[in-house]
């Protein structure tokens, strides 16, 4: 590697930062929406919210694909020197797992609606009909994907909680730049 890409510096670029927070808000919002919509007594509101959950899910999927494509061309900035060896190894693994959840959740949701015997069309934001994944529909397949989506959602939000705790720890306890560099882009491209 001769010329280091922009992100291989002390911080993230604006694109990475905006995508991170947009996706973070959508991901946590999707969890809350999903949790609430299946517990409502009004079936009408539940129906409308499930359609909204599917719409935001596909918006999320699109942004995540964009984010991964962007990230593949730009390695993460190196961690501050103060970060210990354990975290140095753990952080990239957790980030990789977070990427996996960001992909797996929308995909499992898409599989769920595709195999559902209810055959409710998915029309993101009432704009176009999203085709179903080519999976056979059946009650068994629907229960399977509903369970998978459920486990992924709860495991995913658990990992996000850990990720959030780590970010807060860096900021308030270790008082390093890990959180702030995900808030403002680095203006200079050299390390330190």
């Amino acid at each position, binding site marked *: 590697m001769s010329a280091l890409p922009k992100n291989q510096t002390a911080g993230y670029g604006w694109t990475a930062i905006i995508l991170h927070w947009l996706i973070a808000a959508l991901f946590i919002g999707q969890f809350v929406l999903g949790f609430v919509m299946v517990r409502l007594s*009004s*079936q*009408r509101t539940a*129906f409308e919210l499930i359609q909204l959950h599917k719409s935001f899910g596909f918006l999320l999927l699109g942004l995540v694909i964009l984010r991964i494509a962007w990230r593949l061309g730009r390695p993460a900035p190196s961690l501050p020197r103060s970060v210990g060896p354990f975290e140095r190894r753990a952080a990239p693994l957790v980030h990789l797992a977070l990427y996996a959840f960001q992909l797996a959740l929308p995909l499992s949701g898409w599989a769920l609606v595709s195999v559902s015997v209810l*055959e409710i*069309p998915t*029309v993101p934001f*009432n704009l176009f009909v999203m085709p179903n994944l080519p999976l056979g529909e059946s009650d068994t397949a629907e229960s399977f994907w509903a369970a998978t989506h459920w486990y992924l959602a709860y495991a995913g939000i658990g990992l996000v909680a850990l990720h959030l705790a780590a970010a807060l720890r860096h900021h308030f306890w270790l008082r390093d730049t890990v959180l702030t560099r995900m808030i403002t882009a680095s203006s200079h491209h050299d390390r330190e």
Partner: protein
Amino acid sequence: MYARIFGFAAAAACIAMPVFAAVALGDAAGSYIIRPGSSSIHFSIGKLGGGGLDGAFARFKGSILIDNSDVGRSQVNFTIFPESVGTGQSRIDAFLRSDAVFDAADNPEIQFRSTSVKRTGDTSALVTGRLTARGKTFQEKFTADLGGLKAGTIKFHVTGKVLRSRYGMDVGTPIYSNVVDFDMTLTGRRG
């Protein structure tokens, strides 16, 4: 005038074919009770991307009154019990019964009361009436085709389109069409 047209139809039928209706409608006058066993009320709602939601009501009642001297004074009344809706998917049925759609607990009946019947052909008529669902009443039109008449039994094939949004049942639009296509077979027994 009704009688005259039927007289003509009767003559035509004698020459042409074994058409049920024309010959016998002269005898059709009278009142009929709709027999649920040999009747059906189907509906279908199109959805984006093709296909649709099909269902039927298992329980309903009604009557047909045919006035031979003035067809305009004929009447068709029926009451549907939305609790009995069936689509083949129990989750969809529960959804339709719930307050999202029929609110069958608070509105156990959907009623149609005809206000005018106009002949549109030898064996067809346009039935206009007032449809009441979820406490809202609007004028709706149905096309009735005579499908058979024998031994005190009369059969009509009734079709029509109803906009569900007017009755506070717009949930799911535009994914599911606002237009509900009704397709009914009403068999009445003279009573």
